[in-house]
């Protein structure tokens, strides 16, 4: 036990840094779950594949431009922007399409949320397999190898920025963390300060009244999927930057983690997604440091249960909507 504790102490700062970085990607993906849940009260299981598609979209930019060595300066910023935009388009577009095909018919008929959940699971299976069998072999010219890992050549040189004790901070870490937090702030402003955001909030709280007030529900739902998907696209770009690989099933585990983060922070709550993502990332790494990495997921879920026992609606509570029975 004492040994475990010493481990945690000696690895504390590096584990914190990596936990935050992992958490920031959880948070970006969690946004998609949280916004869709806030408006539709639906667990969009296929969001994990939306994220995967984001990584693929960003990757297309790299392969098309034939980037095989690190770039820097303005070129790097331009490249990252382009990757993010294409990733957002791919993810956001798929999310909107998904809503149109899989969820809208159910919504129009006032179906149970359970049916929508199964539709989401079906869509998730379909998208992952569709990419493994058709899209990846075709996009990246890998016939019959759609299930393999796709490695990415380093496109951003990693440099140490500074070192404190045993914590070394590198430029890619700062970039991932900074970009994620910036996106969250922008989104928070969008939801709380703009007309689109007001529509989303109104629909989340009371769709009947929102309609009477002239809110176009269909458009609000579509926008919600678009924004959530776009955030997953950004997460996809950051994933490629940090991990430099992707695969048809890369979203599966991340999706479950991100959903956990959303619930932990308070589902339906944009700031909750950020808090939940960070808390989950940190708890995972501290827990793994203490008990061994094999227990990482167990620690994460036990913390989730404990939080929900004392705060039944997550750390920050539900806020896009008031809790509806």
């Amino acid at each position: 036990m004492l040994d475990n504790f010493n481990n945690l102490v000696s690895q504390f700062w590096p584990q914190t840094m990596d936990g935050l970085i992992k958490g920031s990607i959880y948070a970006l993906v969690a946004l998609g779950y949280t916004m869709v849940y806030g408006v539709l009260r639906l667990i969009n299981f296929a969001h994990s594949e939306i994220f995967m598609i984001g990584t693929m979209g960003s990757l297309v930019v790299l392969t098309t431009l034939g980037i095989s060595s690190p770039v820097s300066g303005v070129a790097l910023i331009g490249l990252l922007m382009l990757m993010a935009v294409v990733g957002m388009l791919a993810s956001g577009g798929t999310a909107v399409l998904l809503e149109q095909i899989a969820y809208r018919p159910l919504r129009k008929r006032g179906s149970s949320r359970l049916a929508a959940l199964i539709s989401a699971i079906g869509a998730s299976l379909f998208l992952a397999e569709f990419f493994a069998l058709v899209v990846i072999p075709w996009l990246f010219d890998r016939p019959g190898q759609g299930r393999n890992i796709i490695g990415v050549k380093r496109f951003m040189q990693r440099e140490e920025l500074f070192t404190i004790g045993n914590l070394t901070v590198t430029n890619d870490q700062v970039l991932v963390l900074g970009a994620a937090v910036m996106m969250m702030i922008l989104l928070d402003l969008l939801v709380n300060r703009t007309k689109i955001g007001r529509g989303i909030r109104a629909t989340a709280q009371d769709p009947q009244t929102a309609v009477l007030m002239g809110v176009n529900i269909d458009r609000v739902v579509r926008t919600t999927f678009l924004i959530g998907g776009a955030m997953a696209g950004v997460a996809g770009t950051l994933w490629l930057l940090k991990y430099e690989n992707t695969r048809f099933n890369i979203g599966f585990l991340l999706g479950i983690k991100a959903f956990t983060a959303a619930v932990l922070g308070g589902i339906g709550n944009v700031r909750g997604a950020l808090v939940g993502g960070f808390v989950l990332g940190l708890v995972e790494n501290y827990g793994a440091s203490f008990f061994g990495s094999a227990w990482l997921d167990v620690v994460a879920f036990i913390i989730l249960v404990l939080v929900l026992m004392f705060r039944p609606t997550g750390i920050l509570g539900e806020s896009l909507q008031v809790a509806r029975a």
Partner: protein
Amino acid sequence: MKIGFIGDLTGDNAAIVIPPRNGAQLAIDEYNAKNPKVKIELVPLDSKADPSTAANLAKTAITEHKVVGIIGPAFSGESQQVQPILEEAKIPSVSPSATRTALADAGMQFWHRVVANDDVQGPAAAEFVARAVKPKKAFVIDDKSAYGQGLGQAVQKALGSSAEVQTDSFEATATDFSSTVNKVAAFNPDFVFFGGYYAQAGPLLKQLRDKGIKAGFMSGDGSLHTQLIEGAGAEQAEGALLSCPCKIAYAWAAQDENSKKFTDTFKSKFSGQLPEIYATEGYDAASAFIKAIEAGNTDPVKINDFLKTVDFQGLGKQVKFTDKGEVEDKNVYIYQVKGGEIVSVGNSTEATIG
């Protein structure tokens, strides 16, 4: 006559099961091309590495396809469930790639494998490390799979006498290894061993290198795949060591005429694919059955009796089984990533690294 092939042909680790399937197919095609009296047909059965499915498929192979033998199952977990079924049905099997040690201790008469087990590979790899790398501090990681954990523990045990060892394990689905990487960094070893599959070995190696850990890296047969280089990046993978109780044909092509010929035939037959890991073993497993059938055996029990006495120079090794069904050849070979390619550095007992 039909021979079944059971293994994960479409799942996450299909990239190390399709090569032995193709290897077996190649051996059978070559045999059929000679216009023998009895032709052989290979029946591929996709288990997705799920033991229950594999068990169902084994019975299907017996009752519906009336196979006279099984090549596989590819992995240890599925083998454990299929073994007793084949035993009861008296159908011989030869696995090209199931390496869990305990499989041979179940007292099976109809079960064989053409690959040495983890208790051979682990200590051989560790002895090689102790001799050629001489680490003082080693970190052993495993993926908690039946295969990875077994191999990791064998290495840990063998290294324990000469080096200070720490360990960590993660889930076989994990993609972020930062907690493990930080443990490694804190321990600051001069050598890291990973027991697990290529899908995680590549990203793990990359994340280790990105943390500035320059310790030597080694993994076992499950990671011996060009996918390791794809996942880690050529620069990060450079110098990584791999052990396998098998000969990888393309890595041996320069030294060995048969391996070169096999590599060329394989590539031309399977649209340019390399004969990745266990392609050789798939070929040898099929060859063992072919020898039995060539000798005029058509009944599964007779074929099994023949397998007990079979002794021929296969592509990768001398194929001769012990009473328990293990292959007698216990050579372990060491490979290294050099210039973005996997090359052979020889037998584990004499290999050195530059």
